């Protein structure tokens, strides 16, 4: 990776206006602000109904300085395809097309169009901002809601099923770049986007987005919670570049080190208040098994942590 961006070297150009309609403590407003800095002004956005639709403002006022096409819920990746098709037809090969959908708009209703676009090799960057439920409609469960989370459609004992592993599904299309990121590690996100911009074809980002209103915590802890999700090994930062998987940033530092117990993370949010000790223990065991797998793979494949380990 090229030299790492710091808060001092981050572009000063602000493409997301302050005072927008995002909730206090919204992880998306952090990730979006930083990501648009990385994408730059020569970008066209495609956005389905989601929290971002609200963040971006109600007609006739807009909170961002990039052109944006609002599209229907299931059509995000097809919308991006259409923008690209027109740009090619009009001889424009320089503008970046970036789609931004929530977890429902990506993992549930939008996955067919996204799969089609990845299979066709469309030259776009797709961002899934994963706040782990249908937050904009009032916290209903989605495919990426984690097990045990109480939502308005899993109201008492929490979601029974596991979180859908969308980055792996997208990676299975054999696209050139898949990355996870977190709103709590904005510089990691920034640098990954800068790298993705040097590549072509479909590129997919899955960004973990703490949501005070939907998860049940005080807005001031948004960044802290996002970090705890990574430090506990529950949500991992990685990238898959041309088929090669590697942990990055804060997750890579956990290899061979000590992970925070997942219980610490789960206890901070009212959505997990229905979890029994037994279920927490089961979640911890699943995380441990996943990380055992990472470390075993590391043994078999020395460069899993990458040649440029910090």
């Amino acid at each position, binding site marked *: 990776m090229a030299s790492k961006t710091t808060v001092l070297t981050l572009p000063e150009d602000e493409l997301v206006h302050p005072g927008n309609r995002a909730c206090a403590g919204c992880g998306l407003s952090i990730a979006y602000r930083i990501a648009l800095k990385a994408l730059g002004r020569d970008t066209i956005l495609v956005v389905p109904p989601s929290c971002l639709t609200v963040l*971006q403002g*109600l007609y*006739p006022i807009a909170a961002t*300085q990039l*052109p944006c096409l609002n599209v229907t819920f299931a059509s995000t990746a097809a919308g991006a395809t259409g923008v690209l*098709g027109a740009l090619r*037809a009009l001889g424009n090969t320089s503008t970046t097309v970036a789609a931004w959908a929530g977890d429902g708009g990506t993992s549930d209703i939008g996955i*067919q169009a996204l799969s*089609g676009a990845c299979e*066709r090799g469309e030259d776009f960057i797709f961002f899934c901002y994963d706040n782990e439920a249908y937050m904009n409609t009032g916290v209903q469960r989605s495919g990426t809601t984690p097990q045990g989370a109480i939502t308005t459609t899993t109201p008492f004992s929490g979601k029974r099923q596991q979180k859908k592993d969308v980055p792996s599904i997208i990676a299975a299309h054999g696209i050139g770049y898949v990355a996870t990121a977190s709103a709590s590690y904005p510089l990691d996100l920034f640098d990954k986007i800068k790298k993705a911009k040097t590549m072509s074809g479909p590129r997919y980002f899955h960004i973990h987005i703490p949501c005070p209103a939907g998860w049940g915590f005080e807005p001031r802890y948004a960044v802290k919670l996002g970090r705890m999700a990574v430090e506990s090994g529950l949500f991992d930062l990685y990238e898959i570049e041309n088929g090669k998987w590697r942990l990055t940033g804060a997750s890579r530092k956990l290899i061979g080190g000590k992970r925070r117990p997942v219980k610490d993370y789960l206890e901070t949010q009212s959505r997990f208040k229905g979890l029994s000790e037994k279920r927490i223990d089961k979640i911890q065991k699943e995380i441990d098994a996943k990380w055992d797998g990472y470390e075993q793979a590391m043994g078999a494949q020395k460069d899993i942590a990458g040649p440029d380990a910090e």
Partner: protein
Amino acid sequence: MHIIESGNVAAAHGVKLARAQVIAAYPITPQTPLTEKLSEFVEAGEMKAQYIPVESEHSALSVCIAASSTGARAFTATSANGLLYMVEQLHWAAGARLPIVMCVVNRGIGAPWTVWNDHQDAMSQRDAGWIQIYCADHQQIIDTVIQAYYLAETVSIPVMVCYDGYILSHTYMPFELTDPEKIDAFLPPYKPAYALDPANPANLNTVTLPDIRPDIRGQMAPGYMEIRHDLHVDLRRAIDVTADIDKKFSVAFGRGGNPFLEPYRCDDAEFVAVCLGSLSYHLRDVVDALRKEGIAVGVAGVRLYRPFPDQAVINLLVGRKAAIVFEKALSYGNQGALYGDIKAALYPCADRPLVHNYILGLGGREIQTAHLLDSLRTSCRTPDAIGDKPVWLGLKM
């Protein structure tokens, strides 16, 4: 130059001549030969366009919506359940005021499955805010596709060019293939009022509120209701625009003259049969036969169905004894939709005719000339005996 080809290939030539820049389609019978032909034109380099083989009809129209929003001339085509899978996008394209052209190769809709022709697919979308034009032969298909872009881009409203599955899509007929230079002189390149552009950013199709709201300069911007009212006003305006385009096309190519209804032997007719699509040409034979029996009857095929050309309907039908509406679709639980529209148009007129309704040909049920003859003869001989409810023709059980 005349060529003999299928209706689907006629449509493909229309799209090629109109120089569509982005084509997105998903296969469904009986539309497939049209999009196959387009992919062939593009891959052979005969047509400079982006052909995007999407994974669904929903995505096909999504691609067209986004491409049109970015400033390209967009085309798609579908039939039956494919059209219904697009429904959300149909309304979106109209609301976003995008001049997309789509061929609807008319087919019945499931369940139960049918792949054969009727008009229920397009008819079910008459209120989506699109312009709908029906074709009766291959020449009309190719000419209408070209005119549809002119119309769509003039009023910023998408257009469906509807033609009968199999009866037109898969039959062969001669038609004139006009020189591309002449079409270029008729149809200028697409110049959108606004297209997505990083140098001039805008947030399109964003959330509106029930009331109007000022923008950051304090200027009032329209709300949802004003935006939708504009769509309706412009759809009504599209009636006159359709007539103007037809005139211009007639002068340039010598074809046209009947943009709203295409009459046959109507001048002195006491009775007029009315229908959509190729059925009007079938009814011409029936009219000829009944004329020999001394019945003063004619037939008119409705070309422009949405916006509904009320005045043209009034001009054609007021003063007749009866208008007999034959339909390959209906508003279930009520009556034929065209029948209802015609009655509504005629209601304010003092000298309005009786109006009859026959439902036929659903799911490709064979439309026998004998059935048309018998029913039309009965309507003309005993017009007062038919009554105000749809009569089903060709039911066998």
